[in-house]
């Protein structure tokens, strides 16, 4: 079974402590600590040493999704406090200066974006970003990719080209308003079509906004949506 877990922002909006409490009783072994808003970064970094994360074999940190050019250098300074073994997920459309992000090397995981965004949605756009950040890894958001192209052809192209960069997967159903909903039947059958391109050891982070009662059911849905195809190594390397 794939390593699987949640983004803290998905189970408790803007409240990582509460999210960790809710997830403590669930069958998850991965976690993404979310600081999507700039003001959330400091408190989360300050709390890292106090958080009980021993049950998670994979932890990542989601950087803010909006900041100005002036705010970028101090943010980068702050993010240096993220443990080196934790990937830092970053949206490519918010980057003002690639140069100052380059220092993170493979710790920086660039995420493909949804339709609302002006950049980072397609293979061509991501290729340009990776040209600027050649050592960066990738957080593949399969929900974003489906929202951009329901035939999953863009997802296929991105996965085929950047499979070697894959650090983690974001999963949810991204609706027309670009909100992260639970995975529907339609999304599930779409995700299944490209699941074979996702190596079975890549952590899956669920971003579906769910309440406590829905956490277990969402894990089951995501597990069905991304079946483990490790028995298809030839194809996975296509």
């Amino acid at each position, binding site marked *: 079974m794939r390593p699987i877990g949640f983004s803290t922002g998905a189970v408790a909006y803007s409240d990582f402590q509460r999210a960790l409490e809710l997830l403590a009783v669930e069958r998850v072994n991965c976690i993404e600590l979310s600081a999507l808003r700039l003001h959330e970064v400091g408190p989360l970094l300050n709390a890292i040493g106090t958080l009980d994360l021993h049950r998670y074999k994979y932890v990542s940190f989601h950087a803010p999704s909006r900041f100005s050019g002036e705010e970028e250098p101090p943010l980068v300074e702050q993010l240096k406090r993220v443990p080196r073994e934790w990937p830092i997920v970053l949206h490519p459309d918010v980057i003002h200066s690639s140069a100052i992000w380059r220092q993170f090397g493979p710790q920086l995981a660039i995420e493909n974006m949804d*339709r609302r965004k*002006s*950049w980072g949605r*397609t293979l*061509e*756009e991501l290729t*340009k970003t990776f040209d600027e950040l050649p050592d960066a890894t990738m957080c593949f958001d399969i929900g974003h990719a489906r929202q*951009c*192209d*329901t*035939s*999953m*052809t*863009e*997802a*296929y*192209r991105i996965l*085929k080209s950047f499979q070697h960069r894959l650090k983690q997967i974001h999963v949810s159903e991204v609706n*027309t308003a670009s909100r992260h909903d639970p995975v529907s039947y339609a999304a599930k059958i779409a995700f299944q*079509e*490209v699941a*074979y391109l996702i190596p079975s050891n890549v952590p899956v982070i669920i971003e579906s906004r769910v309440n406590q009662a829905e956490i277990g059911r969402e894990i089951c849905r995501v597990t069905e949506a991304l079946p483990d195809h490790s028995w*298809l190594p*030839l*194809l996975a390397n*296509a």
Partner: protein
Amino acid sequence: MKQLDIGLTLVADSPIDKLSTRVGAKWENLRAARERAVEKRRVLQADLSEFENADSSIIVYGSLGRDEFTLGSDLDWTLLVDGIADPAHLEVALAIKDKLEELGHKAPGREGVFGSLAFSHELIHQIGGQDDTNANTTRRILLLLESTVIGKRDAHKRVLSSVLHRYLKEDRGLWHGSTQFRVPRFLLNDIARYWRTMAVDFAAKQRARGNEGFAMRNIKLRMSRKLIFISGLLACFSCHLDVDESEKQKIFPAIAVQPLVEHLYRRLKLTPLESLADTLLRFEGLDTWSAQLFKAYDDFLGILADESILRNGKTQRVHLERLSVDELDADPIFQRTREISHRFRDAVNEIFLRSSTELSRLTIEYGVF
């Protein structure tokens, strides 16, 4: 949005140029038409930029989509919507129509297939069955075979990929069939159906319009409409001809639809003439016929593009558009177009039916029965 591929420059290594170099020919009318199309799209992109939207694409078809644009060409367009339903979409389409009229562009044909809105749901969901109207089939097949985008491509790309996904995923024979060829029959049958529909509609228009415009429609059916069908056949054949064996071994056992969608999407970005040239480049033994085919098409475009005025005060194009059926037999211009179409037909028949190549084998296997 940063546009990465807007198709507003001439392709430097066009398959048509490569073929012309190989056969030692110059097809100046093809080149001129391509340059005019690129320039026209560039102008339109500037003129229509205020209508750009990630949920819709302004699609152009016909000679402008095929890079066969002449000064007398009309402008077939639709506003393709792939997003949340919005009453304002119609207002946008009407504003585009007004803008194009204001800029002096020739309006689309009178059937009402173009010049307004088209919706992704109809194109994707209504393939075959009673709801697949003549207009819907036309929009869908021409979206595949001769469309190009003015401005943002997002909606166009999404819809095209989804339509292809349906044709491929639902083609059970493609994935489970025992034939040695890997040709998507569902798609091919729809393209063949459209070709026959065009031929039947030719007769219907002849009746409905009392033979008005017969000469021009006749030559277009023999040349450009047939070319569209050929390019559709070639796109389908390319799944067999252009995908190498090792890729097929990965794709077909796993029913991996997306690699084939991607392949066809790339293939369909070629214009029909580029697609034909790209295929013929693989068959050097057919160069004599390839040269004849392209020369005939070049001559055809030469007549349509000729701006010189005849003694009757018309261009050759206008002369053909207004020629009555009673005058056809004695009319030297129409007779010349017939002669051109016969050269085109003979080359097509040699290449696709009598050449004893894989191309003719595929045509007989899939194009007839």
